[in-house]
């Protein structure tokens, strides 16, 4: 304590000490609040700046036009269609893969070195910079497997990127299922796969859903890996529609086509010297943030709804 000195304890002015002590606490608390306000102010100024620059540009035309050399005519149609299609591929790949990996790690893996290696791997991959994933995809998918600079490749790389998010969320959800559920299932004669399939995964659904939404909201904003695999920044066309006029009515040509995504479109516009394009970039940024906020809100809603349904 601060009062150790030649002063005998009895001679200390305790009331004054207590007052000073409380003042210091208050000072720090005020400091903490100031930091909080600074952080909030940054967030607010970011949003306000974006809104100020971009809202005027936001219009139905903006959402439904292709990019153009003339800033006033440029729009994000190809960008948000591209984002949606890429997110579809990402979800289709990452969710089953992530759930399966998490189920194995949580319910099947024996306590041996191999399981440890796998776990360390997942943790490590969560910390690898996203651009490295881009390099992986470039070497392995674009050239190695010859998949080219396509929607499929983008979906693959983003799926790998958010895989750790889904695995961790699913594991947490499984871990929070009380042991008595497993014992009840076992008591009825279920084997491990039946227990997982019929009882555990249904119970873990809210957590898995939340994790998926959070992962996808991250993937939407990822630019670096998608640039690296070669997504072009000026795409003035839409991929071929998956619904065709003849049997089997559904085709997958769109997977192998070039594309762009929202964050790349925004990046492209920022990089242009003309100020008018910056307004477009801001508008695209608003759409991007709106999508991210929507998804995070959805995740919170799912979490809340699940907690209420559980009794």
């Amino acid at each position, binding site marked *: 304590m601060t009062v150790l000195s030649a002063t005998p304890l009895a001679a200390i002015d305790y009331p004054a000490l207590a007052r000073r002590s409380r003042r210091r606490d208050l000072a720090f608390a005020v400091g903490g609040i100031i930091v909080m306000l600074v952080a909030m102010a940054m967030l607010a100024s970011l949003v306000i700046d974006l809104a100020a620059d971009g809202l005027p540009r936001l219009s139905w035309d903006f959402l439904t036009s292709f990019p153009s050399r003339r800033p006033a005519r440029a729009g994000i149609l190809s960008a948000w269609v591209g984002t949606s299609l890429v997110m579809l591929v990402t979800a289709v790949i990452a969710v089953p893969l992530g759930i399966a990996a998490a189920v194995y790690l949580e319910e099947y893996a024996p*306590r041996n070195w191999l399981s440890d290696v796998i776990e360390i791997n997942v943790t490590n991959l969560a910390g690898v910079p996203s651009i490295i994933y881009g390099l992986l995809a470039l070497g392995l998918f674009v050239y190695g497997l010859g998949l080219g600079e396509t929607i499929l490749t983008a979906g693959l790389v983003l799926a790998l990127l958010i895989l750790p998010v889904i695995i961790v969320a699913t594991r947490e959800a499984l871990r929070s299922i009380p042991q*008595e*559920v*497993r*014992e*009840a*299932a*076992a*008591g*009825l*004669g*279920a*084997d491990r796969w*039946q227990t997982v399939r*019929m*009882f555990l995964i*249904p*119970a873990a659904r809210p957590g898995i859903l939340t994790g998926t939404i959070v992962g996808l909201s991250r993937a939407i904003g990822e630019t670096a890996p998608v640039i690296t695999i070669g997504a072009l920044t000026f795409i003035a066309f839409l991929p071929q529609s998956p619904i065709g006029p003849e049997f089997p009515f559904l085709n997958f040509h769109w997977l192998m086509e070039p594309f762009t995504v929202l964050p790349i479109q925004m990046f492209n516009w920022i990089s242009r010297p003309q100020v008018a394009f910056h307004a477009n970039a801001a508008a695209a940024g608003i759409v991007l943030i709106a999508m991210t906020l929507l998804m995070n809100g959805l995740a919170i809603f799912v979490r809340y709804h699940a907690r209420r349904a*559980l*009794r």
Partner: protein
Amino acid sequence: MFGGEPGPNGEGDDVLHSPLKVKSVCLPDPATVAPPAVEPAAEPVVRARVRGLDFWYGDFHALKHIDLTVPERAITALIGPSGCGKSTFIRCFNRMHDLYPGNRYGGEVVLYPEGVNIVGAEVDPLIVRLRIGMVFQKPNPFAKSVYENVAAGLRIRGIRRRGALDERVERALHQAALWDEVKDRLGASAYDLSGGQQQRLCIARALATEPEILLLDEPTSALDPIATAKIEDLLGALVEDVTIVVVTHNMQQAARVSQRTAVFHLGEVVEEGDTEQIFTNPHDERTEQYITGRFG
């Protein structure tokens, strides 16, 4: 003991069983004691015989050389102070310990009429659990509807046809004395039921699979007295079709409900025999001390 017979003090089939009833049973008075539910003339058929059962949790020797008989279509109660191995023992019957690493069985639990030792290494624990059902201490219905809870065991056995499921679910709910209370809300969440109803639901869930032995691990310790009484009555009715083994920390419950009792102490069976004899004329000093409440 239970059922419609009036007790020695004139109480009828009341919901609350006064502890006085037990004391009066303990006093030797053959003229007023109700006759046992099982026919005493024939030698009771044995459903399972435990011989020299040992069990280790890792290095801890939890069950020591247990010998015990489980008669067919009777209720066998396992009593004893807490922590003495009753739950550990009953979980050997359906190989629950196999779910966790580091456990080891020794000795035999022989299931009749085949005469197979179900804790033997060559027996598949899954098959044991397909034949022997369990109800746990705290009601643990699945987060599903009432119907799906009861149907769970059937689906696990590959029964999928709606007609077959409907029939068996209804039968099980009748057996568990729950049908009338839930027949209009089979699709409701199991969590909407009260604690006592949830436990009866768990019993129905186990019964739907037509087990040869029904194990109950302190089924009423988490319930209020009214729900407890309902379940005790239920067990009395069930025993005509199912062999029942019940762990209970409540001696009076054992005395009320069972035909056979085994007294556990520190991982051993101290005494085993007809319930009446255990409570009125215990052979072992430890049994007497436990029954008269000297320790517990």
